[in-house]
């Protein structure tokens, strides 16, 4: 089973990512980072999630409360004042792991083979860990992240929130040499959390499904109210789903859930209109199906440093999420 650390800022969709990961992957720990809300709030939320889902065996470590350079940004207009508005969850009593998230990541990676990091918030913890202990770059099997976009952004026309919040950290991660899988907004925004999906979840009739449905009610309603969208998008579960071996999930057998293409990704740190953007060089894909670059063709720019998601089977991802939620009491 793949061993992962989920680095997150819960967050409605983060909560779902945790629930998805816990049933398909070996979750070594959950680390928190300021993003959707303040560090204290998202850390509380991470503990609430492991408590209501019966996952308190997974250690939760608190991380960086401030981006490397830029001022913090949170999105109460998306995730509410608590960062996980909706269900009224009791204050958590589970203790935090005593270590700082950065130390937790470093110690886990240095002591365990083949750890995969799954950052689904700003990349502050991961970047700090890479700088604090550069040897982890050679030991991390892979980073599967939710962030950036091959096309449009949501914080600005060009930039997606997780990268926009801490682009310098993202730059450190994308230049680290660690194999990266990037699920950007271009695919994650396709995964809907509208009434249809929420009612399917509620219909499971379990305690967990009731909490998840109630949290997604809030998420969908705010996005509808504030942004005029049909509903929310389930961004973060994509980075987890990308790691799940679906051949081991009988009902989900089929071709790839998320399709990736190798690209060079640079993080824009300067542009007036583009700062925080993941500049994906997909020029070699223009002749797709006609000209192969995998066998020594010419790359136009820098060689690829990431596998970037270009397509997603959103219906199957929703099915996978719902089948997984059904496993919870």
């Amino acid at each position: 089973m793949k061993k992962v650390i989920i680095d997150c800022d819960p967050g409605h969709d983060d909560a779902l990512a945790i629930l998805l990961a816990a049933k398909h992957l070996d979750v070594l720990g959950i680390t928190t980072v300021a993003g959707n809300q303040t560090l204290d709030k998202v850390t509380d939320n991470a503990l609430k999630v492991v408590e209501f889902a019966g996952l308190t065996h997974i250690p939760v470590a608190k991380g960086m409360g401030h981006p490397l350079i830029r001022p913090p940004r949170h999105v109460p207009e998306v995730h509410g004042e608590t960062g996980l508005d909706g269900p009224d969850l009791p204050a958590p009593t589970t203790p935090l792991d005593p270590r700082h998230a950065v130390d937790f990541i470093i110690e886990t990676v240095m002591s365990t083979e083949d750890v995969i990091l799954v950052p689904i918030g700003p990349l502050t913890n991961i970047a700090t860990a890479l700088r604090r202990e550069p040897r982890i770059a050679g030991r991390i099997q892979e980073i599967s992240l939710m962030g950036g976009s091959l096309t449009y952004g949501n914080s600005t026309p060009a930039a997606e929130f997780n990268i926009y919040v801490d682009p310098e950290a993202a730059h450190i991660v994308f230049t680290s040499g660690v194999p990266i899988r990037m699920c950007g907004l271009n695919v994650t925004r396709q995964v809907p959390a509208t009434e249809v999906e929420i009612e399917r979840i509620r219909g499971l009739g379990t305690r967990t499904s009731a909490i998840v449905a109630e949290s997604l009610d809030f998420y969908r309603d705010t996005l509808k109210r504030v942004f005029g969208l049909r509903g929310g998008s389930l961004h973060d579960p994509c980075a987890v789903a990308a790691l799940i071996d679906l051949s081991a999930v009988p009902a989900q057998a089929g071709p790839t859930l998320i399709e990736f293409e190798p690209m060079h990704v640079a993080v824009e740190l300067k542009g007036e209109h583009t700062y925080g953007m993941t500049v994906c060089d997909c020029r070699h894909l223009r002749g797709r199906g006609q000209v192969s670059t995998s066998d020594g063709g010419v790359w136009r720019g820098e060689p690829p440093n990431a596998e970037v998601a270009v397509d997603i089977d959103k219906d199957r991802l929703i099915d996978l999420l719902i089948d997984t939620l059904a496993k919870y009491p």
Partner: protein
Amino acid sequence: MRKFLIDTDTASDDAVAILMALRSPDVSVEAITIVAGNMPVEQGAKNAGYTVDLCDAGVPVHIGLDKPLLREHVNAEFFHGPDGMGGMNYPDPQRPPESRHAVDVLIDIVRANPGEITLVTLGPLSNIATALLKAPDIAQSVEECYVMGGAANVIGNITPSAEYNIWCDPEAARIVFHSGMPIMMVGWEHCIGDSLLLEEDIQRMRALGTPYADFTLDCNRSALAACRDWLGLPGLSLPDPVCMAVALNRDVSTHDEPKYVDVETTSELTHGETVVDRFGVLEKEPNIEVCFAVDSEKFKRMLFDLVS
């Protein structure tokens, strides 16, 4: 008769776009203005002039800015060949370029034909920006300006996120995009995919046997090779003719919407990117109509009709 003004850095695909306008029976091309881009202006003027001669059109050619507003000029010989015309070395045009500067001619023609001029820009926007700075009133007098340039987010050719025309002179593009002129941006992405001239299209065009069809293919020899070797495309991309097709018949665009669009000018990595606020996250008033999809079959049909 619709009145067109064409501003161009004439190399091979520009020449085909010019030919399309010159051969359109309901269009009168009032002038062709030349800007530095694919080619230095002298060569661009020769290429435009030869195209005018080929169509026996007698349209005046005026030379404009010989470099971008702020940046060094970077031409596209590597793409279009040393003469910009696939190394065909066509003869000099029958008449040399006119003596008047392109910027002044642009202003005069628009002012003399208020509300009647369709401006089609096929190169960097240096001439248009300069004209708009000198005579801001023309922004409101142009009927519509069709810009071949840029792309909706993160589709580039010269860099990962920037298209050549805008990349060449992003400051000019910024001036033009914020001038208040009615603009339709027909980005680079529309000349790839289904709009590419594939081998079968090329053979079909060759079989037409007209001088216009031969010219279209001959002058694009280098471009075709560059499309294959440099862009990795399975056929010939014709960005300027696609834009001209939309200008000639707006129905060639099957999806366009007014959007807020800005041009990145400050960053080394992304300068020249046209940042399209597709989902309205900035909540700003739209300033550009962005073409999001074209009818490739309609484009090809129009091209074939006009070279027949």
